[in-house]
């Protein structure tokens, strides 16, 4: 049964009940279903494939998937509220000279509506909480820093270790499996799991390889491990996402995902090219105590607690210290 706006001003209210109101319910549900399905289909086919951070790695893919799931779950809830609100305004608005739409028996609670609303929203929220928690740790920590002893580690034994060193205000990268050379440029092979060991030589930075979906804080004296497996060739942007001083805004560079063959060629040639510099670098370690210039948490120069890496990782004491 359809009801005109005029007679519903007396007969209906937000708390729907009775057989006359069933048609309102079905109409609202139908409008909601059509709009929700239309939105979700359009989103998943038009917008979804392009949501950030993209599909360059398994972790980026996971982040984009999570974003799409949250959108297609949350927007129908929003549409339900809007549809009900607009429907109520159109169908049940007070007419001129009509009775006050607020108050009376119809304005009282409706147990079915309340129970249904609480049940549906509870199910949605609990599902998203469980889904979000699961996705937060899959795959292998979802690209987030897990500290020095990661809980979620890759099953593969073919993991490339890459150390990321933040310092005011640049990123450098060390490759322990290639002699420990340290370079300004970051190249990694596709279809290979990468373990980023993120640390800092001074203040807190944050390593954000945007298109890889990797983000891990760089803390001095800490080895913060984040995993990812690149799945597409191309360039990605590395930025510092922790305000770290005057030149924080320019603390970025560009990395590349290349084929394993190209990576090996690059790493081997770079190892050879930088051999003279690698020879004077501190031996590779997961954290450093770079106090040669007073960076041990004190003020420059820190003479009270001089550079003493020997106990830390067997490095040679710099001359004159």
């Amino acid at each position, binding site marked *: 049964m359809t009801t005109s706006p005029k007679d519903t001003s007396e007969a209906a209210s937000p708390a729907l009940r009775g057989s006359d109101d069933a048609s309102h319910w079905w109409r609202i549900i139908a409008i909601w279903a059509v709009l929700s399905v239309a939105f979700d289909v359009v989103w998943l086919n038009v917008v979804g494939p392009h949501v950030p951070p993209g599909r360059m790695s398994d972790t980026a893919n996971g982040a984009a998937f999570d974003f799409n799931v949250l959108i297609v779950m949350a927007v129908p809830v929003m549409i339900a509220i809007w549809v009900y609100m607009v429907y109520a305004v159109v169908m049940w608005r007070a007419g001129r000279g009509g009775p006050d739409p607020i108050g009376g028996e119809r304005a009282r609670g409706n147990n079915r509506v309340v129970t249904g609303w609480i049940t549906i929203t509870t199910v949605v929220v609990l599902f998203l909480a469980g889904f979000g928690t699961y996705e937060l740790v899959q795959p292998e920590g979802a690209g987030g820093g897990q500290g020095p002893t990661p809980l979620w580690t890759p099953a593969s034994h073919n993991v490339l270790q890459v150390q990321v060193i933040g310092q005011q205000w640049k990123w450098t990268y060390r490759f322990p499996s290639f002699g420990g050379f340290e370079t300004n440029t970051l190249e990694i092979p596709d279809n290979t799991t990468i373990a980023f060991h993120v640390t800092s030589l001074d203040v807190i930075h944050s390593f954000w390889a945007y298109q890889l979906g990797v983000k891990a804080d760089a803390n001095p004296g800490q080895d913060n491990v984040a995993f990812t497996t690149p799945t597409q060739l191309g360039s990605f942007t590395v930025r510092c996402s922790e305000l770290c*001083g005057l030149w924080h805004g320019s603390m970025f560079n560009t990395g590349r995902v290349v084929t394993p063959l190209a990576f090996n060629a690059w790493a081997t040639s770079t190892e050879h090219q930088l051999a003279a510099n690698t020879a004077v670098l501190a031996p590779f370690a997961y954290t450093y105590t770079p106090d040669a210039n007073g960076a041990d948490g004190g003020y*420059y120069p820190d003479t009270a607690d001089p550079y003493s890496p020997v106990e830390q990782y067997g490095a040679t004491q710099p001359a004159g210290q």
Partner: protein
Amino acid sequence: MPWGYGDVVNKTGRAALAGALALIAAGIVMFAFINLMSQPGTVTFAASNGQVNVTLQTVGSYGSGDHPTWVSYEIQTQGGTWQHTTIWQVPARTQVNVTILQYDSGSPLRNEQLGQVTGTVGDVATLNGATFSVNNSNVGNGVGHTFSIPAIGVSVPLAGVNGNDTLCGAAPCEPSSPHNVIKFSFMSPGPGNYPWQCFVPCGLGWLYGNGGPMGTVGYMGGFMKVV
């Protein structure tokens, strides 16, 4: 005090107070604006035969101005005078030949990776005429500063002079003071503003050595404007 008279006084007083506060607020805004927006001048370099010659010097303590004890760079204009600024302008896609007169002492680097010469023509520089690609700061007088433009990968370590010598204490330093001469070339990129800086934490007395002159344009960092 009669109500009417008091009201008039109060209104006048309130208006005067509001006006004074407005003036103070405007003054604070202007002071902040002027100070935040002000920056050292720009030294412009014109190309000659497709190349640009840029000369800088480093001094352990500038010796005058607002921060006489701060370490600093300064730039020689094409007219030959020294200017206390770290902002300079060069043409795009031109070979920039840099000469740095390093008057400061050195120490081991926090990260020896900064001892590499990168991004220059041939990935090399010269130190007092001798070509080098790596400076081991653990030997000799160490490295005092670096000249680095991270966005284009340029980084050159500047070997320190012997700290036991009588060093230049005020800019501009005279060639008679102990110094090293570091030369290198690089190609300027496309138009834009490129931050450059020293990567040695040389801000004496500042946390991690990266405050003060390391965090102030005009001392140990600035901009290369490319037009």
